[in-house]
């Protein structure tokens, strides 16, 4: 059997005979064309139904544009002085609630976080702690706040308990995930020295999760401050009540002042926590 040598010329003509597409188009995101078109049709149908069910009161919106302009104007000229005593009292209460609830939340989250780590806790403890986390994560802060206000009465205590409860779900879950992914050999080395249980936790595991714990706590401090502005809407203390009153009275300049203060404090705390986190890690 002999292989016939192909001349370079015939090769070129062969290549030219294959019809190459003139233009290129990127491959589609979803390969199955049926699924692609069904999804597209579904989205269009959903949009048609949902937009159709909206009851838009255009005249009310038109009337509201005037107020919107007033709010924008209020944002340009925020009025800090008019209700300064109310604003400062609400702000201090919010900050106080933030600190208290974060501290309580962290103190409770750490044991629960350890209990919810599958590589440390026995199964019954694990399930119990995971149950607490799931319970805390499934309800919005505001719903918990409503229940706590009904039970504990109006005031910042209900807010502090709400935020602590919400902190548990957030912090324990992330902490447990971090503990589950630690370096086992370090913990084993500590155990091999004959260290008792608490020393094993303290020197084998705790140093590994500390940077992340600090980072998460700072992040939660931030979230708790933002949420503390909300729980006040249902009477659980903080700046929310002042803000609600300002909107009810259509005092947009005061409301703008409060919002600017919130944004400013959040920005400041983000900056500081970024600085601390960089130092810790």
């Amino acid at each position, binding site marked *: 059997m002999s292989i016939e040598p192909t001349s370079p010329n015939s090769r070129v003509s062969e290549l030219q005979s294959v019809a190459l597409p003139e233009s290129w188009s*990127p491959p589609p995101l979803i390969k199955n064309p049926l699924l692609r078109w069904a999804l597209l049709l579904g989205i269009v149908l*959903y949009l048609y139904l949902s937009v159709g069910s909206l009851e838009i009161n255009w005249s009310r919106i038109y009337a509201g544009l005037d107020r919107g302009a007033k*709010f924008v104007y209020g944002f340009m000229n925020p009025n800090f002085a008019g209700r300064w005593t109310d604003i400062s009292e609400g702000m201090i209460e919010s900050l106080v609630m933030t600190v208290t609830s974060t501290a309580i939340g962290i103190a409770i989250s750490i044991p629960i976080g350890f209990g919810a780590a599958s590589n440390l806790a026995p199964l019954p403890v694990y399930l119990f702690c995971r149950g607490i986390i799931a319970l805390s994560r499934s309800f919005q802060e505001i719903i918990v706040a409503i229940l706590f206000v009904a039970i504990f009465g109006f*005031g910042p205590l209900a807010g502090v308990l709400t935020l602590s409860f919400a902190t548990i779900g957030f912090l324990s879950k992330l902490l447990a995930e971090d503990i589950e992914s630690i370096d086992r050999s370090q913990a084993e080395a500590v155990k091999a020295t004959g260290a008792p249980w608490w020393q094993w936790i303290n020197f084998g595991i705790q140093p590994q999760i500390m940077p992340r714990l600090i980072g998460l706590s700072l992040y939660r401090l931030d979230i708790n401050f933002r949420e503390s502005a909300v729980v006040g809407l249902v009477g659980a203390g903080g700046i929310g009540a002042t803000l609600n009153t300002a909107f009810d009275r259509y005092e947009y300049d005061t409301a703008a002042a409060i919002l600017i203060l919130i944004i400013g404090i959040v920005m400041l705390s983000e900056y500081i926590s970024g600085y601390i986190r960089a130092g810790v890690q």
Partner: protein
Amino acid sequence: MAETLSSTPKVWQLRNRNQQLLSWFIWLLGTALFVYCWQIVSESTTWFFVWDAPRIAADIGGRMIPPRWSYINELWEPLWDTLNIATIGTMMAIVMAIPIAFLAAKNTTPSTKFVRPLALLVIVSSRSINSLIWSLLLVSIIGPGVVAGIVAISLRSIGFIAKLLYEAIEEIDKNQVEAISATGASGLQTLVFGIVPQILPAFAGITVFRWDINIRESTVLGLVGAGGIGLQLNASLNVLAWPQVTLILILILMAVIFSEWISAKVRHAII
């Protein structure tokens, strides 16, 4: 001399003296701050009500059971509204967040001195203010209803989506972009064929994640009048109809689990 030194053997410590002192000092400051704050909270608390709390909790718990199942027929429409608030709100947020993300990312922004800080300011403002407060503002401007909820959700989501998206844009592989622009592609073509395919999976993940959060948030917007199932919750709470409250809470829980399941499925399919 040597004996006196060796008679006090050095015990291993985790930290040296200065670190130990600093650590104690930080703990002292933290504890003092906590005690001070707790005192303020305690002063504005009516402790009589707190001691009475177990009885009240048992009382409310007793009233909440059993849920009033027949009430569910009045809840389907608010539930549909809740879904719409979250979904249309997320869609509107995407439309507004994409340009802001490109303006905020260091490698795509037209100017790091003027445009980028402005885009970052938009992101921070949107993120700092909870959707309930956005609703409060919008209800007072455009009146109560589903539209206020949709706009509130979209305004709140802009910051979230834009922040995660611009971080994804900043992490893209430069070589692919360079390869596209080396073919002589225009700026728009580089964007569409060099950058977009790289961030598309992240973008889809972020969107579904935010939609999941928005379902949760839109269930409570009705408390301030912005439509959805929260309106019914508020109405039931105002008349102390606890069996109805239980039913609504169960429904909210189901909605949250459902949305989390969908979002986990979709993200699993993408990544």
